[in-house]
């Protein structure tokens, strides 16, 4: 208020002294300039009253748009580019130096059920949604630099429009899948002392030791929590974006977008590593989410404690009624 009056006074003073002095004395800023500069420096709006129902229209000038622009065009592009390409580079180097991680002693031919149908179905629902959400999101960040020059403006708009629909609709099965994932797997993903030892041993990837692990090892627990917690934040911020200005105002929308897109690109990088190790990176790993049956030797190598438990369960299993002891007849 004080500044506004000062600005007004300054404007009035110049006016009164004009034109003789105005040409020689340094010009004081006008009220408009003063308010624009102050809003910019303080990150506030120039706000007023409006006679139409759209409350957003009462903001005359919102200088934060400038920061949001810098975020979207510069920060996000760099962070996203480095995260995604950097992770691909790391995985390539890893692959070239260590090759595919083999099953020690080869396949035994005996298998254990690792994930049942519900677990696998839910995993693939979340995974396929994630891939499409990720690609359609990245398209908004990088598409105009990469895809647009290749396919041309009309085709690019068609792709982006479908991407937007997919992004909006797949948000729902994705979120549902995250909730189910949390419910069915949280009990096996509570961090414990064994995970610290697992990380100290480099997860068996970097050194040559074989750290012990239960159903999920330290790295998998990390993937779980990145997915569940990161996914929750991405989902909440995403819903704020899907329902524009419904729950929040301009700052809220800009902030939601910043959180959503930054966390998303980081999650995409993390998931690239997860996809690598679950498919081409490790022999025997894909079966867990493919058929659900993993080789016993793979299980002993990577989830020794879990394999022991499962085998013990098998031994103490209650006999089905009518079963005869072996050699009884």
């Amino acid at each position, binding site marked *: 208020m004080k500044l*506004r009056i000062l600005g007004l006074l300054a404007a009035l003073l110049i006016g009164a002294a004009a034109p003789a002095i105005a040409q020689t004395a340094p010009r004081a800023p006008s009220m408009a*300039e003063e308010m624009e500069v102050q809003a910019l420096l303080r990150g506030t709006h120039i706000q007023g009253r409006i006679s139409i129902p759209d409350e957003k229209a009462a903001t005359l000038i919102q200088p934060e748009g*400038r920061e949001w622009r810098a975020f979207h065009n510069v920060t996000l592009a760099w962070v996203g580019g480095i995260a995604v390409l950097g992770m691909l580079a790391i995985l390539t180097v890893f692959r070239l130096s260590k090759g595919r991680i083999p099953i020690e002693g080869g396949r035994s031919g005996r298998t254990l059920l690792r994930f049942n149908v519900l677990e696998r179905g839910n995993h693939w629902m979340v995974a396929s949604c994630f891939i499409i959400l990720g690609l359609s999101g990245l398209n908004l960040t990088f598409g105009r630099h990469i895809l647009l020059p290749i396919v041309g403006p009309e085709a690019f708009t068609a792709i982006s429009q479908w991407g*937007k629909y997919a992004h909006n609709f797949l948000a729902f099965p994705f979120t549902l899948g995250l909730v189910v994932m949390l419910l069915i797997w949280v009990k096996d993903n509570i961090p414990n002392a064994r995970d610290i030892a697992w990380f100290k041993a480099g997860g068996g990837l970097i050194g040559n030791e074989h750290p012990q692990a239960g159903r999920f090892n330290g790295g998998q627990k990390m993937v779980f929590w990145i997915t569940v917690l990161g996914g929750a934040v991405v989902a909440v911020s995403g819903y704020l974006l899907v329902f524009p200005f419904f729950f929040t105002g301009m700052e809220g929308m800009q902030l939601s977008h910043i959180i959503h897109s930054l966390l998303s690109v980081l999650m995409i990088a993390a998931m690239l590593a997860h996809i690598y190790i679950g498919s081409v990176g490790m022999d025997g790993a894909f079966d867990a989410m493919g058929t659900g049956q993993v080789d016993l030797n793979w299980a002993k190598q990577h989830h020794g404690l879990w394999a022991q438990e499962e085998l013990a369960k098998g031994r103490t299993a209650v006999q089905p009624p009518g079963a005869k002891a072996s050699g009884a007849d």
Partner: protein
Amino acid sequence: MARMKFLLDAERCIECNACVTACKNEHEVPWGINRRRVVTINDGKPGERSISMACMHCTDAPCAAVCPVSCFYTTADAVVLHDKDLCIGCGYCFYACPFGAPQYPRLGNFGSRGKMDKCTFCAGGPQADNTQAEYIQYGSNRLAEGKLPLCAEMCSTKALLAGDGEIIASIYRERVQRRGYGTGAWGWRTAYRETVAI
């Protein structure tokens, strides 16, 4: 070629909303969309001013910079226009625009936005000048007919000026010098990184 700009002399604006009405009518802008609006700051207090605001056709336009489908273009008159056939209604231009100019019809699923609409400086869009197709999507193209934006032409107090930036700045400068005061060219610093030196 001229560098087209808007300039609002807040000392003259009486908040009659004629510019808003003229714009709505000239381009048959649908309900819920306002290409131009009048905002009153310091309402009822000393220093109260009403400012008619629309797209300022910025230099280095923020909307164009962030658009994920790059559907904006700048005409030879420095008017910032966009192609509705390419827009996907993502709303990013509204987050970046300092003046709240981009508007969206509510369409489709959730609160999702239809194709963005904003002030065209009465210069239509990428369709052929003054065709029905252009009119339906963007409104009339007065610039192609050699006329200036209707909002400013209609303004009874001539608070709202539209046209070649040099010319409207000199009109404003002369007014301020003659009457001895003025609150400055609203939005100019933000849109054009310059102000009108008095």
